[in-house]
């Protein structure tokens, strides 16, 4: 190929059918061969050596100039890139700090709002509001109840024993059924690993993680519920307790129910309203005062983990 490039090219110039093959086999610009052939035809001697005219010299200087400029440019851009990266990292850190500070301030303000509201409402209404907040999960509550503990079994060889025995892992359905049966047993407030459940809470799986209200929780899981005295007994005889005991025996994960005194469950985050809008005058007047004497502290058992 290097002996006489482009000899056959004089005949049919232009792109051969297989342009890429041509490109690979004969990378030299065909113009050189053309020029050489033209010179041979006119009888000029083939020029040897670097016989470069003034225009060619200018172009070569330009070439060197271009290389130098490109080099300088690349070198000059490098610190800029590193700077941008470290700048972004610093920004992320700063924003995280800001978020922490803001959420702390939000908590503070919420306390303040609660205090002001109680002062403004006075007596029975404030108490009723507190009760409602507690039962809907928007207020912190404490009391006695039970704690259900679930944990993955040791090792991950659950898939080895095959058959009808599943892996020794707690899945989201277990948490769902435990939460539902705790509601059924009379629980008034439930939290999973410190995440309070409300009527709109979800317990779902995303890959291997379990999400409670779209926030990941990891094992060991602790489902704390506040409810009446006999709640534990009622829960122990519920469907999910029986199932989980059997599963624990067969699959090797751990499941335990114990009484717990003085549980404190945190408030759930305020629900984000997407479709409902606050009315102009937020005056929800409870007609009559007899309502508060009713069963104020019974949350709907249909809520919670669905």
């Amino acid at each position, binding site marked *: *190929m*290097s002996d006489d*490039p482009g000899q056959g090219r004089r005949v049919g110039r232009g792109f051969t059918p297989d342009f890429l093959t041509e*490109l*690979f*086999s*004969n*990378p*030299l*610009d065909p*113009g*050189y*061969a*053309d*020029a*050489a052939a033209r*010179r041979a035809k006119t009888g000029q001697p*083939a*020029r*040897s*050596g*670097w*016989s*470069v*005219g003034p*225009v*060619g*010299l200018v*172009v*070569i*200087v*330009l*070439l*060197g*100039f*271009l*290389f*130098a*400029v*490109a*080099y*300088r*440019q690349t070198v000059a851009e490098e610190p800029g890139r590193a700077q941008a990266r470290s700048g972004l990292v610093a920004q992320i850190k700063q924003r995280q700090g800001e978020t922490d500070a803001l959420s702390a301030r939000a908590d503070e303000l919420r306390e303040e709002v609660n205090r002001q509201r109680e002062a403004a409402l006075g007596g029975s209404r404030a108490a009723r509001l507190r009760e409602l907040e507690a039962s809907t999960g928007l207020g912190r509550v404490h009391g006695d109840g039970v704690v259900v503990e679930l944990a993955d079994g040791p090792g991950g060889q659950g898939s080895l024993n095959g058959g009808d025995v599943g892996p020794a892992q707690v899945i989201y359905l277990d948490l769902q059924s435990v939460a539902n049966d705790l509601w059924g047993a009379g629980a008034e407030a439930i939290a999973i690993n410190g995440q309070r459940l409300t009527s709109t809470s979800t317990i779902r799986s995303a890959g291997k993680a379990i999400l409670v209200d779209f926030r990941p929780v990891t094992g060991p899981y602790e489902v704390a519920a506040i409810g009446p005295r006999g709640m534990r007994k009622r829960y122990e005889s519920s469907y999910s307790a029986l199932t989980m005991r059997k599963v624990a025996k067969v699959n090797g994960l751990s499941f335990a129910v114990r009484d717990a005194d003085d549980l404190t469950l945190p408030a759930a985050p305020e629900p984000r309203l997407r479709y409902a809008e606050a009315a102009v005058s937020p005056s929800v007047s409870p007609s009559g005062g007899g309502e508060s004497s009713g069963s104020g502290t019974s949350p709907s058992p249909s809520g919670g983990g669905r």
Partner: protein
Amino acid sequence: MIAVLALLAGVLLGLWLDPTVPAALQPYLPIAVVAALDAVFGGVRAKLDRIFDDKQFVVSFISNVLVAALIVYLGDQLGVGGQLSTGVVVVLGVRIFGNVAAIRRHLFRA
């Protein structure tokens, strides 16, 4: 020999003047360098083949750079981004490779 000196002079000139490339032209710089490299290696190979031609060299350099810039600009305007310039780099890269291989054969007979 004089060409090498000219090239060195250009490099020194570029380093000494240290011009700043306007931001609008910056995307064209890498492609222009690749096109220029293709012209240089093509010229060197043609010289070793004893068919070097002054005019052909100048024209191929200028047209290479212009076409490469045009393709980059076109890619930008069409919204295909870097994909068209990838084509330029592939074609010119193949040519550079082929020419360098030919130069190597000339110089080392291998």
